[in-house]
């Protein structure tokens, strides 16, 4: 597959590399920066896969880095290579926190070690960080004296090649707990008039497992493996009542270590087909396939157990009525009215409304009653932050910014653009979080934990939250 993997700086010049095969010239990567710059000169279109002189350059970007893999054959699995490169970033993020030019330079030893382990002859091998951390440790060189001891310590865990390759044996926790976070991210594209063009829910079930031994877990969610939704196609207010609550942790612990199925009073249950469920590799896929039961031996610590997507029409949870008026060469006026269209007892938190303004705006003046409002030139936008936004409330603000009297000469003699899309380059973006609430109505009915040998008492916890996805936007036209 891949003949080599490179970490390159923002110009595409190599910082660190590992060659896995000898079938490409040493100088192969030197072409990469020129390849990029030549392309940039001609077009804005830079696909992540470039061909030069019979070599294929596949790359992703992360912070100020390019991660590049070079392959020699059209037959190489591009999907696997891209996924691998992203996985590599993920692993390194676990080791180095931030993966950027500087941290790559500073940690070359551990990166070489990892590169040796995660790929062999261009074929991805072991990428499970939890396991890698067992035998590739950052501080393996404390003292020379302890070298003998270490020889034993740095053996690869036996489990590595087992069918449960993500969990070593002999894990022990004092308190056996499992935390479940159900996070639903809403992506929504709206017009300025409030029409919803596209909406979807992306759900994530995150687990933080602090359980001893080799526990076998069984997760039950409302309905038989496929849960129901409380949504309404005619897009009424999303019933906040559906929020499966576990507000009170104490209550849970006091009562019983399993999850109380929330007693929703919601009326309509519509079966939804949750087609693209995706599971962590620990989930027994065929078991789910045949019996619709989610069973798994979890990795220790945090991981994403499953995710799902629902493409369904929802009414905006946070809606903004935005009005932008651009007076060229003079000023820009913005009026915005935001509304939390959620149940009164719910509250949206950390609401951020980002409204684009021209690059060269100046002297911002604001009028607003709630939250904080500031100009963020690095994003060419103004940002309205509302710490908490109770359901049913409506807040408004207005802003005015100056525009230079002289247009930027860079654009030559181009006439003043006619539509906002050209001046403002981008939509209004909204971010928010709504705790104790899921839009889809997903609920955990139970999480059974069974460690056949240890038979300990265990405590599962569940939290729900709805938040904006990476694309909750209002188009300005």
């Amino acid at each position, binding site marked *: 597959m891949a003949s080599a993997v490179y970490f390159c700086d923002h*110009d595409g010049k190599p910082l660190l590399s590992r060659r896995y095969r000898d079938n490409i010239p040493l100088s192969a990567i030197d072409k990469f920066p020129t390849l990029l710059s030549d392309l940039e*000169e001609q077009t804005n279109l830079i696909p992540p896969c470039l061909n030069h002189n019979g070599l294929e350059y596949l790359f992703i970007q992360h912070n100020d880095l390019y991660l590049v893999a070079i392959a020699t054959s059209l037959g190489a699995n591009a999907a696997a290579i891209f996924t691998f490169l992203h996985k590599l970033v993920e692993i390194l993020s676990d080791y180095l926190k931030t993966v950027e030019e500087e941290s790559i330079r500073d940690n070359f030893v551990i990166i070489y070690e990892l590169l040796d382990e995660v790929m062999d002859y261009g074929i991805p091998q072991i990428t499970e960080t939890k396991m890698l951390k067992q035998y590739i440790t950052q501080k393996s060189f404390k003292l020379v004296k302890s070298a003998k001891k270490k020889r034993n310590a740095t053996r690869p865990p036996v489990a590595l090649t087992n069918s449960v390759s993500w969990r070593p044996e002999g894990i022990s926790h004092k308190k056996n707990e499992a935390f479940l976070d159900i996070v639903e991210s809403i992506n929504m594209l709206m017009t300025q008039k409030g029409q919803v063009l596209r909406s979807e829910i992306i759900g994530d079930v995150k687990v933080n497992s602090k359980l001893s031994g080799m526990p076998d877990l069984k997760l039950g969610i409302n309905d038989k493996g496929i849960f129901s939704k409380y949504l309404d196609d005619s897009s009424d207010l999303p019933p906040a009542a559906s929020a499966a609550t576990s507000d009170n942790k104490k209550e849970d612990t006091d009562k019983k270590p399993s999850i109380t199925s929330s007693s929703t009073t919601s009326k309509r249950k519509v079966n939804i087909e949750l087609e693209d469920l995706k599971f962590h590799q620990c989930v027994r896929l065929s078991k789910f396939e045949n019996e619709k039961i989610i069973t798994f031996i979890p990795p220790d610590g945090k991981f994403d157990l499953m995710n799902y997507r629902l493409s369904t029409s929802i009414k905006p949870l946070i809606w903004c009525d935005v009005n932008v008026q651009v007076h060229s060469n003079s000023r820009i006026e913005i009026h915005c009215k935001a509304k939390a269209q959620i149940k009164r007892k719910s509250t949206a938190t950390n609401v951020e409304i980002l409204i684009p303004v021209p690059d060269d705006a100046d002297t911002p003046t604001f009028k607003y009653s709630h939250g904080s409002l500031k100009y963020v030139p690095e994003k060419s936008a103004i940002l309205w932050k509302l710490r908490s936004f109770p359901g049913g409330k409506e807040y408004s603000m207005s802003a005015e910014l100056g525009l230079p009297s002289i247009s930027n*000469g860079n654009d030559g003699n181009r006439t003043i653009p006619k539509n906002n899309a050209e001046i403002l380059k981008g939509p209004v973006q909204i971010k928010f979080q709504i705790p104790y609430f899921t839009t889809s109505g997903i609920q955990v009915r139970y999480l059974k934990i069974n460690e056949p040998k240890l038979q300990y008492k265990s405590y599962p916890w569940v939290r729900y939250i709805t938040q904006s996805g990476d694309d909750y936007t209002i188009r300005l036209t």
Partner: protein
Amino acid sequence: MTQLRYLILVSRQGKIRLKKWYTAMSASEKAKIVKNLTPTILARKPKMCNIIEYSDHKVVYKRYASLFFIVGVTPDVDNELLTLEVIHRFVETMDTYFGNVCELDIIFNFNKVYDILNEMVMCDGSIAESNKKEVLHHVTVMDTMESNDNLERVLS
């Protein structure tokens, strides 16, 4: 003779440290020149000649430690060998002014560098003064005038 079209100072990392244009060009042309030339020149090996062709003109460059001095010249008119001497003169002059000039001096005192440059190279990109001392003399006098400003209004 020499008739520069532009002078660009670029660090080894490709960062622009100074630029001066002597011919009228559109902003996009300028941006294109900077963008294209930098990687080309940084990629050149030490033994290669210091003259390259770019678009409709030639470019003479010279590396001093971590800095590249890049100069666009007028084909047929310019004497490329002399251009290299002009660059060298400029570096010498800065060296005397700052006293062992280094890249940081240029970064933080770019307006001084422009002052020196404007005494050395005239508006059409030709050399204006070949005497180093003469150049430095006038720059220093003006520097003194600036600092006297605070004491008395020299100009009024």
